[in-house]
């Protein structure tokens, strides 16, 4: 066998293996780089009241961020679950939940909240700066930030079924039970 035979066989085999493996990947799944990093500060007007909300106020708390929009159909499927999360954890002094209204018209966002109801605050992301800060691809996306202000969790897509129970039982509950370390 000559050298070029060997190289050729190797190249073709390698290529086919690559293609085979590629078939089972999802070209649309994108890993995030933000987990474990300091969460960017958020500041903006509340959708309904217009008063400025800033995450500075929530220092030392666990924050659940949910990016949504009125035109987003998948957001509607998770809406009841979001309300349930807040009902369950809002008694906890260390828990804050914030909606981020993404690429939306003010009127549409207001209407959405009126129709579907809400029990937590929503910040309007007017110039998209918050979404870009959080590396948001599309709505819905959900983040959990711990007491030290570190991003612990990110999920792209609606919080339904197993995703929902996973978030509440293995992420939020343990985080809230943990005492804030005295150093922070």
């Amino acid at each position, binding site marked *: 066998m000559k050298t070029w035979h060997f190289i050729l066989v190797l190249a073709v085999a390698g290529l086919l293996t690559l293609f085979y493996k*590629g078939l089972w*990947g999802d*070209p649309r799944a994108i890993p995030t780089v933000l987990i474990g990093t300091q969460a960017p500060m958020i500041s903006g007007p509340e959708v309904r009241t217009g008063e400025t909300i800033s995450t500075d106020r929530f220092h030392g708390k666990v924050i659940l961020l949910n990016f949504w929009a009125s035109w987003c159909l998948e957001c509607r499927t998770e809406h009841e679950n979001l309300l349930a999360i807040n009902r369950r954890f809002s008694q906890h002094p260390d828990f804050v939940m914030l909606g981020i209204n993404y690429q939306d018209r003010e009127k549409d966002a207001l209407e959405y909240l009126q129709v579907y109801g809400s029990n937590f605050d929503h910040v309007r992301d007017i110039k998209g700066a918050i979404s870009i800060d959080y590396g948001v691809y599309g709505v819905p996306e959900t983040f959990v930030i711990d007491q030290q202000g570190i991003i612990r969790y990110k999920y792209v897509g609606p919080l339904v079924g197993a995703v929902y129970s996973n978030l509440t039982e293995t992420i939020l509950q343990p985080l809230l039970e943990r005492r804030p370390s005295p150093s922070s």
Partner: protein
Amino acid sequence: MFIEIGHFAVVVALVLSVIGIVTPILGLKTSRPDWVRTARQAVTLNFFLVSIGMAAMIYAYLTNDYSVKYVAATSNSKLPVFYQVAALWGGHEGSLLLWVWILTAYSSLVVWMHWRTQPVTMPYLLSVQSLIMFGFLSMIVFLSNPFERIYPVPLDGKDLNPLLQDPAMVVHPPMLYLGYVGFSIPFAFAMAALFSGRLGEEWIKVTQRWTLFAWIALTTGILMGGYWAYYELGWGGYWGWDPVENASFMPWLVGTAFLHSVMVQEKRKMFKVWNLFLIIVTFSLSLIGTFLVRSGVLSSVHTFATDPGRGLYILIFLAFMLALGFGTLIVRSGRLKSRVELDSIVSKESVFLFNNLFFLVAAVTVFLGTLYPLLIETLKTAKVSVGPPYYNAVFMPVALGLLLMMGIGPSIAWRKASPDNLKKNFLIPIVVAVITTAAAWLIGIRTVFGMAGALTVSFVSATIVMDFAKISALWARRYEINYLHAFYRAFTNNQRRYAGIVTHIGVLVMVVGIIASTIYQVEKVVPMHIGDTLQLKAYTIRMAGLREVSGANWMGQEGLFEVYQGDRLITVLRPQKRIYNASQTPTTESAIHTIYLGHIFLTMPDIQPEGVTVRGLVNPLVLLVWIGGGIMALGVILNIFRPRMKTGA
């Protein structure tokens, strides 16, 4: 009813393709020529059968038969008739049918033309072509059936993707497939040469015109795709290094290398194994392109719906074809002993080899860039993007190297170029190139890309001008005729060579278009209201109005933009923003005004009550890209239809 007939015809074609694979080989083994004839009939019959399949589909489109699932997914009762036919190749299943149809057409034509003259090749060719047919027909029948019915029958179709409702998109896929599939002919001939052991120059001489035809179709297909992207996608560029564009560009690059390299085998009987390798790679890349586009491994604007099962099937077929092609090459090429004769490294032979090297490296660059994200995803489960900035940095230098070789190759001598030959042919071009580059610097071209472009383009142009000038002068002197007449006679006397040079001129024209439209492009994206003006170079664009418009299957808004040069109104441009009724998909329709081979290009990406976002571009000399493409095609046509050359005295 017709649909069932079409479906049945295609199923029969699948069965016949098995006969086409087996009988010629059996006939050969048992020395029974009638068995080979059976295969010929099977292949020819397949053309008619698949034609029936095509006709049944087109009939379903024209009668708005939405009980056919594929028709319901790609057509609509309001879709103009023109596009109803083209909708057949607007999706995965139908375009696959078109692919097979073109394959059967090529196969029967080749068999019909070469049956008498190439008796030894025919059994192998029939078998290989039938094998490819089998691969694609079984995919149609088992995995991607366009004849499938749907129940309940939808009231109306979902409509053809609005982006594809465009004249260029009617012709672009057939052209592209004529190219891809056309390369199966030299591939099959090469396989036949390897199997039969007749490894001379004959297969190359016979397939030369077929290869040229496939090349011209692929080139036209790619250029049309570029023009479509240019005015339909609305960002004013004609090439985005999208995976699907790359998939068509790779076989083009290697196919072009092959077209050059075979000349050495014809003239000097060298590089035999190399040429076999090149044509196998070219056709393999056509198949790989099909895999990439249809399996969903890469995300792209143009990919068809994802389905791992379908992808797995194409992958198995691809693996089989690659194993067949390269396996045969490895096992059988040991018999080949090219008589290598070379007198000097400074010779046309070695320039051809370096030309091949550059073409291959160019193809590898595109290949690497296209597949690198996939590689990273499998190795590290991370995501990367490889886009235009990468190709601009890595592909462009290689392309400029190729361009430079285009100047050297045609003028350098075979075997050994003497210093005298070099000086006579290249001294003046070098001087011209240096002066032009200096001039480029003086008029303000400062980018490396622009300077290198000016250098190479002027060098190559100068070699061509000198070439034509010399030969005309020579013939004029000999025959005492005027230069023009002399040029004509010299050209037709060795039309193959000069047709090739015409193609090179086309490349140069295109390169000038690419460089000029890149470095002199002006582009602005601004919000505008009625009455606002936008300044693009010397042109003032005033938004004069915005009105509602509608077409057969869409509604939308049309902007009215007056274009002034100084105080003079030169044109009114009307870009549109459309919403197609059936799918509710928005599109932006660009408005283009041609001026001095360049374009003033306007689109309205976004219309809001607060203002209209207007994207305005001036693309100087951009038309040269397609004019150059036309000249390239003209050169190849002159090559295909050249008069028979007189064999040397």
